C-alpha cells in the first residue's frame, strides 16, 4: 500500500508541477504579442496593417513603408470615412460607387467568431422572438423554446409547459420534414437589433432549416428547397457545426456557417445563396474569424497564434485579393524555446479552442529529453554512491523497488521529478 500511495503522490505531484511551474514561468515571462490588424485599401488596391510592437503601434503597408496617421486614414477612406468627412477630405466616389454618408453608415458589417463561441457550455433553452408582431420594436416573448428531441415551449413566469404551442410547432416541424433530434442551432436572442432573423437549425441528418415565429405561428422551411438550383446540391452536402446570426440594417447576410471541415460560408440574399469564404488555413478551433464589410468590399481575416490570413471579396462575393503571413508563435519566441527546453511536458486545463475544461498537454523539445536523460543519469549516480556507503544485502531489491517512483519521476518529468524527489517523503 505504501508504495502505491507514494507512486500516486509522485504522479499527482508531476501533474501539479506540470501545470503550475509553466504557468508561473509565463506569468513572469509573457511579453505582449498582438497580431496585426489587416485592412484593405480600395483606392490603392493593396493590404495595409496596424502592427503592435512593444506597446507602440505602427501603420504600414505590405512592403514595410510606415505611414503617418492622416496618410493612413486617407488611404483607407471607407474605414475612416467619418474623420475624412469632418476634414472635408472624403472623395465623392471610388471606382464608380458614390460615397454617400448614409449609405456608408448603413453598409458597415462587422462579425467576429471566436473558437469559444463554437464549443461552449450552453443550455438548450432560448427565446424565440416574434418576427412579425406589427410593432416597431422587437419584444422579448414570455416563453423559452427548447429544441432537442422535440420542440417545446415553457412559460417562464409560471414554469409550465405550453402544450398547445408545443404541439403546433411539433407538427409544423414534422410537416417540413425535420428529423429530430436537432443537432446545431444558432440565433441572436436579443431585442437590440433591427429585425429578427430567427434561428437556423440543423436536424439529425445535417440538413439546415430556417425557423421563424410569425404572429405566434411557426414558419419552418428547409433551406435547400428555398435555394436556387445551383446552390441546392451545396446545401444538401453541407454539414454545419455552427451558425452565427447577427442581424444588420441591410439584411444582406442571413448567417455565417462553419461546417465540419473548417470551411466558413456566407448565406446571402433572398435565395439563400451559399458563398464559400475562400480561406485556406482557417481552423475554427484555434483561430478567430473577423469579417469587416463596407460599401465596396468584404474583408475576412482569420487570426491564430502563428498565422494571419485575409481575403478580400467584392460585393458580388468574388475574390479580389489574398494575404497570408506567418506570425511568431509563443512557442517560437526565446522565452518559449527556453520553456520547451526546460519543461518536458506542460498541462493546461483551459484552452482557446473551447469553453469547457479539459486536459491539454504540450510537449517540450528534444533538448528537454536530453535534460531529462542528464538528470536521470545524475540521479542514478547519486543513488549508486549512496548505496555503496550503506551495506544493504538482502534489502537491495526492496529498496530498488521503493525508489522506482523517484526514478520514473525524474525520467518522465525531468525538472519536475527532481523537485519532487527533494520535497516528497523518501522511501524507507
Amino acid at each position, binding site marked *: 500500500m505504501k508504495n502505491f500511495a507514494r507512486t500516486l503522490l509522485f504522479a499527482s505531484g508531476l501533474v501539479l508541477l506540470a501545470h503550475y511551474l509553466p504557468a508561473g514561468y509565463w*506569468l*513572469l515571462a*509573457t*511579453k*505582449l504579442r498582438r497580431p496585426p490588424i489587416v485592412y484593405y485599401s480600395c483606392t490603392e488596391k493593396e493590404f495595409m496593417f496596424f502592427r503592435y510592437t512593444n506597446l507602440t503601434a505602427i501603420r504600414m503597408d505590405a512592403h514595410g513603408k510606415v505611414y503617418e496617421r492622416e496618410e493612413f486614414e486617407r488611404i483607407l477612406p471607407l474605414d475612416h470615412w467619418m474623420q475624412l468627412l469632418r476634414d472635408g477630405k472624403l472623395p465623392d466616389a471610388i471606382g464608380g460607387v458614390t460615397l454617400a454618408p448614409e449609405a456608408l453608415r448603413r453598409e458597415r458589417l462587422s462579425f467576429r467568431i471566436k473558437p469559444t463561441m463554437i464549443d461552449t457550455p450552453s443550455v438548450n433553452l432560448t427565446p424565440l422572438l416574434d418576427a412579425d408582431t406589427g410593432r416597431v420594436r422587437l419584444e422579448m416573448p414570455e416563453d423559452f423554446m427548447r429544441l432537442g428531441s422535440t420542440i417545446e415551449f415553457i412559460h417562464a413566469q409560471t414554469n409550465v409547459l405550453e402544450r398547445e404551442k408545443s404541439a403546433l410547432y411539433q407538427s409544423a416541424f414534422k410537416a417540413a420534414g425535420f428529423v429530430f433530434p436537432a443537432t446545431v442551432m444558432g440565433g441572436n436572442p436579443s431585442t437590440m437589433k433591427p429585425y429578427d432573423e430567427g434561428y437556423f437549425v440543423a436536424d439529425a441528418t445535417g440538413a439546415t432549416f430556417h425557423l421563424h415565429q410569425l404572429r405566434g405561428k411557426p414558419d419552418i422551411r428547409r433551406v435547400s428547397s428555398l435555394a436556387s438550383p445551383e446552390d441546392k446540391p451545396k446545401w444538401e452536402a453541407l454539414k454545419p457545426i455552427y451558425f452565427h446570426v447577427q442581424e444588420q440594417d441591410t439584411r444582406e447576410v442571413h448567417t455565417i456557417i462553419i461546417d465540419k471541415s473548417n470551411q466558413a460560408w456566407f448565406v446571402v440574399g433572398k435565395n439563400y445563396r451559399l458563398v464559400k469564404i475562400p480561406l485556406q488555413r482557417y481552423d475554427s478551433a484555434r483561430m478567430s474569424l473577423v469579417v469587416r464589410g463596407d460599401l465596396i468590399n468584404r474583408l475576412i481575416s482569420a487570426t491564430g497564434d502563428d498565422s494571419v490570413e485575409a481575403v478580400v471579396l467584392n460585393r458580388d462575393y468574388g475574390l479580389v485579393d489574398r494575404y497570408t503571413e506567418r506570425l511568431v508563435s509563443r512557442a517560437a519566441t526565446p522565452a518559449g524555446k527556453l520553456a520547451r527546453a526546460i519543461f518536458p511536458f506542460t498541462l493546461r486545463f483551459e484552452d482557446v479552442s473551447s469553453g469547457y475544461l479539459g486536459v491539454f498537454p504540450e510537449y517540450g523539445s528534444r533538448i528537454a529529453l536530453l535534460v531529462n536523460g542528464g538528470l536521470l543519469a545524475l540521479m542514478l549516480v547519486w543513488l549508486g554512491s549512496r548505496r555503496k556507503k550503506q551495506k544493504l544485502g538482502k534489502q537491495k531489491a526492496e529498496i530498488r523497488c521503493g525508489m522506482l517512483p523517484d526514478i520514473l519521476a525524474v525520467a518522465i518529468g525531468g525538472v519536475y521529478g527532481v523537485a519532487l524527489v527533494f520535497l516528497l517523503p523518501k522511501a524507507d
Partner: protein
Amino acid sequence: MFKALVYKEWIKLRLYWTLMFLAHLLFCVYLCLQLRHAFKLHDALAVWNNWAFKGYLFFKPAKNIPLLLGVVLGCLQFFPEILNKKLRLVLHLPLAEDRAVAVHLLAGLFLFTLALLPGLVLLAVCSASYFPWEFLLNFWFIYLPWFLGGYAAYLLTVFTLVEPTWRLRVTCLLLSAALLKLFYLDSFYDGWHRVLPGMVLLTVALVLLPLLSSNRFSKGYGS
C-alpha cells in the same frame, strides 16, 4: 510577567506564525506579479480605468485573507487552552484574571499584525509604483475594513472558543457571523469611507467580548 506570557504564546505559535506569514507574503507577491502581467498585456490606461470606474482591484483576492488568518490564529492559540481546560492554569497566575487573558489577546493581535503587515506593505509599494497617489490612498481605505475584519474575526473566534457552554457558543457563532458580515458588505470601493471611525471603535470594543467569555469560564460555568 507580561513579557513572560507574551514569550510563552510566541513559543506556542511561532511555527504556525511563520507559515501564515510566509503564505500571506507569497500570496501578495503573486498578486503583484499578476498586476505586472496585466500591465504588460494591456494598455496602462485601461488598467487604471478598470480600477477607477469598474472597481477591479488587483488585490481583491486578498479580501478574505485577514478574516481567515484571524480565525485560524484564534483557533490555534486557544484551542489547546480549552481542550484540556488548560486555561485554568493561566487564570491562577498572580495577575488579575482579566489582565492575564488580555495579555494573551494582545500577544495574538500583535502576532496577527506582524504576520500581515509585510504583505500589505508589499501590495502598497506595488500600487505606488504602478498607480498615482490617489489610488494608493484608495488602497489603504479599502484594505482597512478588511484588516479590521481580521482583528474582529480573531477576537470573535476567541470569544466563541473560550465560552464554556455549548448553547452560548452557538449564539456566539451566530453573533460573530453577523458582525463579521458587516466588514465585508461593500461591492465597490470606498463604501466604508464615512463609517470608518465607527468601525475602528467597534473593533476596539470587541476586545471586551473574549474577556467576558474568560470571566464566565473562570466562574466555572458549564464544567
